[in-house]
């Protein structure tokens, strides 16, 4: 079955109200029928994020140690950028599984050149991606504004935090562990959610998402 030749996305565009509260343009139906360009875009986004994650793995140490010296659970702040791929993947493709797939590929790529977590990044990637996926699923894959992005960023954090309790923060007491989870969640909402939303908008404006709902939202708002 192919959905690639159906201009079904145009139907959803037509419903977009011009004034009032702007609704998100949705992916073509059925939602589970991933187009080739959906798959490749998530994969390429994941690779790009994976490279950035790897670089952040080198760069985060200095700010991370500084925060640890102030109050160790604050290290959740520097952990938040690692939650962004799922948010962006979900915002761009708007199909079930996009957030998880994107975050997971980023984790694979991050592990490939050698990082301080080895393939443990795959575990983190799965947990983080699942969290973002849950957020989009709760919203019925029907809302993709800044609110949805913030929720996805926030929900990327809890599973990861719990996993880290048992692997990286084994020496901490429960007070530290709980505060860490809260810090990671708030930072995830702001950094992964907020910045992820800005990044998606910037990509749409740059004309890189023409085949996707965010690209249509930008383009139909100011035709040339």
């Amino acid at each position, binding site marked *: *079955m*192919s959905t*690639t*030749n159906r*201009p079904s*996305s*145009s139907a959803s565009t037509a419903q977009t109200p011009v004034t009032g509260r702007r609704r998100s343009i949705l992916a073509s139906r059925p939602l589970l029928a*991933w*187009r*080739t*360009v959906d*798959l*490749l*875009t*998530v*994969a*390429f*986004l994941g*690779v*790009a994020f994976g490279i950035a994650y*790897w670089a952040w*793995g*080198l760069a985060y*140490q200095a700010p*991370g*140690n500084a925060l*640890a*010296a102030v109050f*160790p659970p604050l290290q959740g702040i520097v952990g938040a950028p690692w939650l962004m791929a799922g948010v962006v993947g979900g915002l761009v493709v708007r199909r079930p599984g996009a957030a998880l*797939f994107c975050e997971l*590929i980023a984790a*694979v*790529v991050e*592990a*490939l*050149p*050698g*990082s*301080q977590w*080895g*393939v*443990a990044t795959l575990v983190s990637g799965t947990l983080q991606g699942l969290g973002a996926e849950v957020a989009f699923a709760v919203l019925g894959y029907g809302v993709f504004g800044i609110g949805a992005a913030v929720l996805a960023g926030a929900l990327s954090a809890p599973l990861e935090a719990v996993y880290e309790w*048992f692997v990286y923060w084994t*020496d901490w007491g429960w007070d530290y562990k709980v505060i860490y989870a809260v810090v990671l969640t708030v930072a995830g909402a702001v950094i992964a959610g907020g910045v992820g939303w800005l*990044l998606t908008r910037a*990509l749409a404006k*740059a*004309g*890189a*998402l*023409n*085949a*996707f709902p965010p*690209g*249509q939202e930008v*383009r*139909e708002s*100011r*035709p*040339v």
Partner: protein
Amino acid sequence: MRSTPSHPARRSGSRVLSERPPGHLEVRGLTWRPFGRREPVLPGIDLDLPAGQRVLLAGPSGSGKSTLLRAFAGVLEVADSGERSGTVLLDGEEPGARAGAVGLVLQEPGSGVVSATIGRDVAFGLENIGVPRADQPARVTAALAAVHLEMPQDTPTHALSGGEQQRLALAGALTLEPTLLLLDEPTAMLDPGNAASVRACVAEMVAARSLTAVVVEHRLGPWLDFSDRLVVLDATGRVVADGPPEAVLSQHGESLVSQGIWVPGHPDPEPRGIPVGTFGEPRLGADVVALDAADVTVERSVRRLDGSQRSTVAVDHQWLQARAAQVHALVGPSGSGKSTLMLAVAGLMGRQGGEVRTHPELAAGGSRDPADWDTVDLARVVSWVPQWASSTIVAHTVLDEVMTTSRAVGLVESESLARARALLALLRLDHLAQADPRHLSGGEQRRLAMAAAVVHQPALLLADEATVGQDRLTWAAVLGIVEGLRDAGSAVVLTTHDDAVVARADRTTVLERPSQPAPDPAPRRPLAARCGPLSLLGASALAIPAGVVSPRWPTSLLVIGLVVALASLALWAPGQGAAPHGRVRSVATRMVPGGVAALSVGWSTWLLGGHDLEVSGTAVLRVLIIVLPSAVLIRWVDADALGDHLAQRLHLPARPVVALSAALQRVHTFGDIWAEIARARRVRGIGASRRSPRSGLAELWALTIGMLVRSLQAAAQLAVAMDARGFATAHRRTWAAPARWRAPDTLLLLASLLPVGLAWWAPL
């Protein structure tokens, strides 16, 4: 030429019933308006292409030729979205009805490459339509022979020249036995030799198989012998001429020329002179050497994901003098290092030997070597027009884009603004002055990059293939600017394959392809390399419990000892042949992040944990235990093999898995894109500067966005190429390579269980 075994689909369906040769294309009332455009790009096209006809489709830049071709292939909505109406029927069916019935070759060589090796890449379409593995090799071999790619099938796809990559794309289309072949300016980016080889290949294929063929091209000459029909679109996308090529040319020749189409027999256009006084006074006297490059050698090394490096000599002991008020053409086959030499002399790429000196008048910061200059100093003297104009775009309107460098180097705004407007008018971009430059067509972006490079009147202009893809009118405008800048006293260096450009140059340097050191014979393979991707990943993952469950440092010490011993075993390469080198160094490099992290963790644990050396020592060892196995094993995971195993062993869904391996295949290109954007920003005066720390952050954001945009564009192009080879409907794929679980895989997993067991049960 060998004949390929017939595909079952060839003998079934409507074609047999109709008893007519296949390949009849009917287009009725086809319109297409992409979202975000007020006017349709295709305004209602009607065309009837009988089976076996060879059509040359021409039209000025931006007339919708490529869009029409994608509509013929049924892939319009693959990478774009919009409103479509009308019908396209191939032998009475939608073009996608049989996967591969329409073969599509895109303009950019390599944009449709899916796999790491050429044999696997050709097999991609066969996998998609579910051809049994046993039947694939014969068809792959036949297709490669048909396009005269005679190298071994495990040749890496990235090692091919542009022309070879286009022929590989032809072979990939050929295996699916198309009845309609579509070529989108297949030779635009190739040097003359490669272009001729591709044309010959197309002609041979089309004749041997009686294919219907459509070639999009705005240089008609080389394709006239091939075609028996010429269809011309005007700037609005309407068909304005249609018929046998000779008849169309004799009736409409003049009007085609005036629309900008390159018609054979008409002299090359004269560059459009720019108004006298557009530029100011020259900085150097005429014919003075502005830049002197002596004995320049550049080696390029590509670090791949697995940590291995391959080094090639890109520029071999080359000399170049750029003189004020002269145009200097750099010519030579692709791979001869023209672009690299240009970057090296402009201080935009490191060199391994030789000297570059500008004229003392142009020196900055006490140095005459542009490589030493700060971004603003460099921008004042040197400008560069890259082949990929889209990567240099930094502003949100065309006018701001053109003004970027003038503002960065602090020129008087009113003077540069007047010059910018004059140049935009000359390049026919003035009506777009307030448009977003990222929404322009490729040809428009190239012209914009030229305007943006000259507004501040640099003493040296370097332009890489600036006339590619331009029609006669815009060609004349681009050359007009080049010569106008020269006449105002600047030195100009151009790389080009365009004979008309070479003919007008004041000097020409011909570069030869540098001879490469012979590749080393294949070394012995370490034991780890004999394992499949799943066991490599699994063994790396088993390191996590091994690290986590160690209770105290004496146990951890024992475990790390065992891990080191096992790592040495994994790197051991028994057998005959040369020893592989760099094994230990590669592991050491990959351990750097882990080592830094281990120290950092140890330090903070010591600081916060009451200066307890035992606790912090355990923390350090725990990180090392987790990281070392990955550092040893992961580099042997191969992208194609990973896809094969995930799909066949773990039964994960086929299409996401293929998308993953196609993306992993291109990881190394991300670094190249990053570097190119950084170069463009530096030479335009807005790169990161030692004088301003804030520019570093701006640079980071710009580079990230730029890299993402380019890679997403690549993803969209690849999606078109993959869907043209049946990937959209590949729900029951076959796999060209088996994915067996072998004895080494089991042994590796068992060995990796040893540290876990030791950590768990050690009595310490």
